[in-house]
């Protein structure tokens, strides 16, 4: 196909978009909403995943010693932890003495009656261990449980399970998201193919003449494909700006809420670093939806 022919046919496709304003607008809006939904959910999922990572890193393994544990038994555990620091498994730890534990419990429980008869001698000593990699937690917990001074009666405190539940939830959420996305895409494709069908109808005379004078199938189809692709692309661009502003608004709002709740490490990421990727994903998705939409219609309504 020659360049000037392509130019001629692309011009036709662009012109069709004007002529079919109402349906075109409806299609563009559907594409925009589909992509907007895709983008916001995707960005929130990325945020959740990265924040879960941060939370995991911040997680302490809490090891309580037996109340009866001797100084030797305590030193044994401390030596183990020191060794793990050397090995790069533990990033840092904190030791809490019986006295500190008693102070803490006095602060937590204001009721004097409950504290009656309790002294620091009744309190266990404990270690708070931070790992360099949360994945190593199982190994560390197993090893540390072996020490005779460690109280394993209530298990060793680690909130990993809760985070894993959260991750599971996130996965289930992903499936729902994919399903909704598929439904919205189908709606978008349907609307685009309907728009194209109207154009096919409006241009039936031209198509007929093109057939009689022996235009190639590809000539006849190209303007409609161009129309579909443009609808998808325009929808993508609009959606990109919608996503940009909506996300930044959401980001500022959620960040100030997190800060007010006292979370200093949890934050929504900035939009700018992912802006280009978001745009590319949108453009590809828009073009694919538009392309499929027009193909469906051309196949069904254009008997070349």
């Amino acid at each position: 196909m020659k360049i000037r022919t392509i130019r001629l046919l692309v011009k036709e496709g662009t012109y069709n978009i004007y002529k079919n304003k109402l349906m075109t607008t409806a299609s563009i809006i559907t594409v925009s909403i589909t992509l907007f939904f895709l983008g916001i959910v995707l960005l929130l999922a990325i945020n959740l995943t990265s924040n879960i990572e941060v939370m995991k890193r911040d997680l302490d393994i809490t090891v309580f010693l037996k109340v009866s544990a001797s100084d030797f038994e305590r030193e044994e555990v401390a030596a183990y932890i020191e060794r793990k620091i050397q090995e790069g498994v533990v990033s840092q730890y904190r030791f809490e003495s019986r006295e500190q534990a008693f102070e803490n419990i006095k602060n937590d429980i204001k009721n004097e009656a409950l504290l009656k008869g309790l002294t620091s001698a009744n309190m266990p000593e404990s270690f708070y261990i931070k790992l360099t990699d949360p994945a190593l937690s199982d190994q560390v917990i197993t090893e540390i449980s072996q020490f005779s001074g460690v109280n394993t009666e209530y298990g060793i405190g680690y909130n990993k399970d809760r985070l894993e539940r959260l991750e599971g939830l996130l996965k289930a959420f992903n499936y729902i998201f994919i399903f909704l996305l598929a439904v919205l895409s189908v709606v978008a494709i349907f609307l685009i193919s309907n728009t194209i069908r109207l154009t096919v109808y409006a241009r039936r005379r031209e198509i007929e003449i093109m057939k009689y004078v022996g235009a190639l199938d590809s000539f006849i189809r190209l303007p409609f494909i161009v129309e579909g692709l443009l609808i998808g692309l325009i929808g993508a661009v609009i959606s990109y700006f919608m996503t940009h502003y909506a996300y930044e608004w959401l980001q500022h709002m959620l960040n100030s809420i997190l800060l007010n709740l006292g979370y200093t490490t949890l934050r929504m990421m900035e939009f700018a670093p992912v802006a280009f990727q978001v745009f590319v994903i949108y453009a590809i998705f828009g073009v694919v939806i538009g392309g499929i939409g027009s193909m469906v219609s051309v196949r069904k309504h254009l008997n070349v």
Partner: protein
Amino acid sequence: MIRFVDATKIYSNGVVGLKNVTVRIEKGEFVFVIGASGAGKSTFLKLIMHEESPTSGEVYVNGYSVHNMPRSEVPHLRRSLGVVFQDFRLLPNKTAFENVAFAMQMVEASPREIRRQVPLALGLVGLSKKAKAYPNQLSGGEQQRVALARALVNNPSVLIADEPTGNLDPKTSWEIMQLLEEINQRGTTVIVATHEKDIVDAMKKRVLILEHGELKSDEKKGIYINED
């Protein structure tokens, strides 16, 4: 050259369009195809243009086996044919010149060729002065001339006219028929489906008469035989 060998067309709704038609049209002939509505005139033309395929039998047009033609060949077959219709089928938003040029653009002619050929085609049909007019500024006869110019501009070897004078007054009809004869004398095979008795009788051309899809008669210098 066009050849039908025992060609039958039965539409999916059971209507018989054409039944066991065997006929041969030589290069450079002028042929009328006549018959009542539904007798098979349109089906006959549609089989030539590959708008429909025969249910059985064979159809050969300009060296193409139309009855078992791959899709990709169809445009090439159609480039060897020119077609005009009763309702002209011009694009209303294009001028006469642009309507004719459109046919050339669709076969990727160069702008230079278009500038050269379109005025020639318009000259041939006697419409040089109306090149810039839009279809709604032209009379019916003039519109059919533009359609003829469009059909001829790519130099087809066969011109097919489906009721070309059906929408025109008798005087204009005559002018169009004379034009078709001129085109035929320049070497183009011309096939005209019509029901205009006077014209057919006066022109003394080959006449194919179709009735209920069957070829009823084929006369060299035929006249319009009306049973009723």
